[in-house]
């Protein structure tokens, strides 16, 4: 019996720290999102949903996240499928490199992109001289989609690469013996088997983009209107501070992320390569 008590005691330090730095801030946000100048209620939420400024932030956040996730996923699918088909030296090298670049995000990435694609970036100049583009604005919505897509690619590759395990080479041979074309194989066998993994990866990428703050903040010094930038400006900006409104905005993001995380867990359980 004494052992059990000691064992429970071992859980305590973890619980204290986890509550202090993870649970307590979340509870504080949940409670204070319901508090505004005119007392308790949903006032903060209706203010956010009624304001064109915050609605724009949400629209931009969603647009950038969805587009960068779709593009990142597409490149990751093509890339990781081909990665499986090349010789192991090239494969190991590129996988290790993707692993490393998955840490290349936030402020350093923003700086690298300014050098590459800023107004005087070397790629911008190259493409302008070749007459391929008129002008390119990295600090616009399209520029942000591009830079977000870049940091989604390594993550997508790392997540999707194991999923292709589910696809066995003998199925393809069996299908082609039965007269299926490449298109038929992907349409009826390949894609259905991969769908849960593809959706799961898409959802992780979406969550990753929705919560991203460092990249867009460093690139535009907080001048581009997306939800994480708005939240941070409401608690640490220098114009006007409203922690309660920030809490409500943060809660909206958390609710969205929770739905996304649970959908992902559910898809993961249905996914083919996990069950095997």
């Amino acid at each position, binding site marked *: 019996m004494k052992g059990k008590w000691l064992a429970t005691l071992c859980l305590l330090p973890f619980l204290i720290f986890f509550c202090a730095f*993870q649970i307590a801030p979340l509870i504080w946000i949940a409670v204070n999102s319901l508090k505004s100048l005119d007392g308790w209620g949903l006032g903060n939420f209706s203010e956010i949903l009624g304001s064109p400024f915050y609605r724009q932030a949400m629209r931009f956040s969603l647009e950038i996240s969805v587009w960068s996730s779709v593009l990142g996923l597409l490149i990751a699918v093509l890339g990781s499928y081909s990665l499986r088909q090349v010789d192991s030296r090239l494969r190991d090298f590129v996988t290790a490199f993707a692993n490393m670049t998955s840490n290349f995000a936030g402020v350093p990435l923003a700086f690298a992109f300014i050098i590459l694609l800023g107004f005087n970036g070397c790629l911008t100049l190259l493409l302008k001289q070749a007459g391929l583009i008129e002008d390119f604005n990295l600090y616009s919505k399209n520029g942000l989609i591009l830079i977000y897509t870049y940091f989604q690619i390594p993550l997508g590759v790392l997540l999707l690469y194991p999923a292709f395990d589910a696809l066995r080479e003998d199925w393809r041979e069996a299908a082609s013996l039965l007269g299926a074309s490449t298109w038929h194989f992907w349409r009826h066998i390949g894609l259905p088997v991969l769908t849960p993994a593809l959706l799961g990866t898409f959802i992780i990428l979406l969550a990753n983009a929705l919560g991203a703050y460092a990249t867009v903040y460093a690139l535009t010094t907080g001048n581009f209107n997306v939800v994480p930038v708005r939240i941070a400006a409401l608690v640490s900006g220098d114009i006007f501070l409203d922690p309660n409104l920030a809490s409500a905005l943060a809660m909206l993001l958390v609710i969205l992320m929770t739905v996304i995380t649970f959908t992902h867990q559910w898809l993961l359980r249905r996914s083919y390569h996990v069950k095997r």
Partner: protein
Amino acid sequence: MSNASRSVSLYHRLVVWLLFLILLLPLAATLLYSLATQWSATLLPSGLTLKWYAALWSDSRFLIAFGHSLVVCVGALLLAIFLVLPLMFVIAYHFPRLDALMNVLILLPFAVPPVVSSVGLLQLYAGGPLPLIGTPWILIGCYFTIALPFMYRAISNNLQALNVHDLMDAAHLLGASTFRAALLVVLPNLRKGLMVALFLSFSFLIGEFVFANILVGARYETLQVYLYNMRNGSGHFTSALVISYFLVVLIVTWAASGLSRDKS
């Protein structure tokens, strides 16, 4: 090899190289920029130099920021080891049912982005009994939560491969106390998995910017905040900084992948 399969294999090699080039491009441009004497409005730099690196590595503000980052990351990882190891052992040995609950809890740092957490943290620890805002302590606590899901998964995979009950029973039979057995029998078996998890956690903790900027900022400047604050300075200088930072990450992830290859 037939003609068709040769062209298929060529296609796959081409895609993989293209992927590599896309990922390399921003890094390569930054590297070149950090080595350039001057580079504006032309395709290639006019000359190469190491002076930006010399300037960076003799800048005391940079060295201090680098030191701060090391203190915070290593502190957070030590805290994580101290908190997570006993927890994992106790769960595996006494309360296997809690594992399901933990698997939900470790989703929290993932579902709650740092920018959201920092709203609550700023209000909770700005004053009162625990005025942690502006000190490295708050970063150590927050970085522990970021590293947690990762460390938990790595150690839990490792523990499942180990038969904790048999190991402990054998140690008990030989006269060891539970504490001794856990420390001298179970822990050494987890060492490699733990080291890999630590290296990888370090490589992303040193890149953390959101908590560092919002909760602490210039009061205890870390590497990423320093990088951000230098944004109006010379682009060559910040490029040298980006490349130096990336080299550190490279060495650490390389060490981790070397370790995990050893394991298998």
